[in-house]
């Protein structure tokens, strides 16, 4: 199973890990102090970006430290690009 990550476990940032899985779905795990308030928004953004990349077969772990939307998007895109560089053949557009 290939995986890649991006971001840091620091205030205002988000650590994202993406792993390729056999199942044809996108599994999203969210850890955040503000999970109750923002988990829905975070998941919506993650699914939007993954959909734009035309990707399935992924497990995505979002370890949030209060990141704003721009940081979440940038970190996820980078993690997907890094996974692609490891041999995943999806074309990820920034």
């Amino acid at each position: 199973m290939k995986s890649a990550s991006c971001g840091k476990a620091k205030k205002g940032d988000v650590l994202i890990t993406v792993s390729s899985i056999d199942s044809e779905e996108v599994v999203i795990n969210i850890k955040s102090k503000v999970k109750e308030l923002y988990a829905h928004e975070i998941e919506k953004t993650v699914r939007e970006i993954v959909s734009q990349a035309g990707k399935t077969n992924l497990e995505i772990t979002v370890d949030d430290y209060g990141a704003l939307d721009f940081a979440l998007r940038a970190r996820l895109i980078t993690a997907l690009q890094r996974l692609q560089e490891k041999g995943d053949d999806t074309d990820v557009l920034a």
Partner: protein
Amino acid sequence: MFWRSIMYVPGNTPSMIQSSMIYGADAIVLDLEDSVEENEKDSARNLVSYALKMLDFSGTDVFVRTNSVDSKHFLNDLAAVADTCIYGIRVPKVQKAEEIIYIDQSIAKIEKELGLPAGKIKLMVSIESALGVLNIKEICLASQRLIGIAFGAEDFTYDMSIKRTKEGKELAFARSVLALTARAYGKIAIDCVFSDTKDPEGLKKDCETAKSFGMTGKSVIHPGQVEVVNELFSPSVQEVDQARRVIEQYEKLGCPGVFSFEGNMVDLPVLKKYQRIYELYGRDKNE
């Protein structure tokens, strides 16, 4: 376009980027170069790109410091930020006019591809080596897109194998040549950072020295340095008031070539200095 303080912001730290516009810096530089580790260049590039597209930077001009032209990152950096709200890019470690031509052509190509107006993306470069200092004139003449020259003292002293001191005597010639040449060719001249963020008195002295060389502003590395630099690179209230009164007298007398103001001769070069101060600071205060 007049920047007293230009603040560096590390390009891979979301918390610093999202608050960078609130400290009163006239411009900020989102940095993809020295503050970003080699294995995080991709991450910082995406972060800065998304920040520029999604955050509100109105009220401050934004530059992105790309990696140098001889790095494998330069073109990717440029592509990531070209279609955003940036005022321009700041390219480090420039040494020759040929590099400016290459940068200019690279920007022109991407402006065309993106359908942007030609010349929209401005260019500022940093001189950080002995060769760069010797080639400043050619660098200034190499592109209309180039609006300013900044000085990078840490790399310069490394290149010269000399120790950098707080007093900065070892930098005097380079700073002087840079400011002189930039002014000669209509470019702004931005002084190097003052590295000790806990020495405001030292920063004040350094600003005064830079100003005496003809620098128009200064790079800063910490929000706490912005206020000092803005103050030191601004004329005083008295100077602005004097400029206003000189200009009023000049117009009242029918715009003579030479006239006397409060016992001092004012000819064209002196008048121009007052006009510049009034244009930059007087109008805003009166409106």
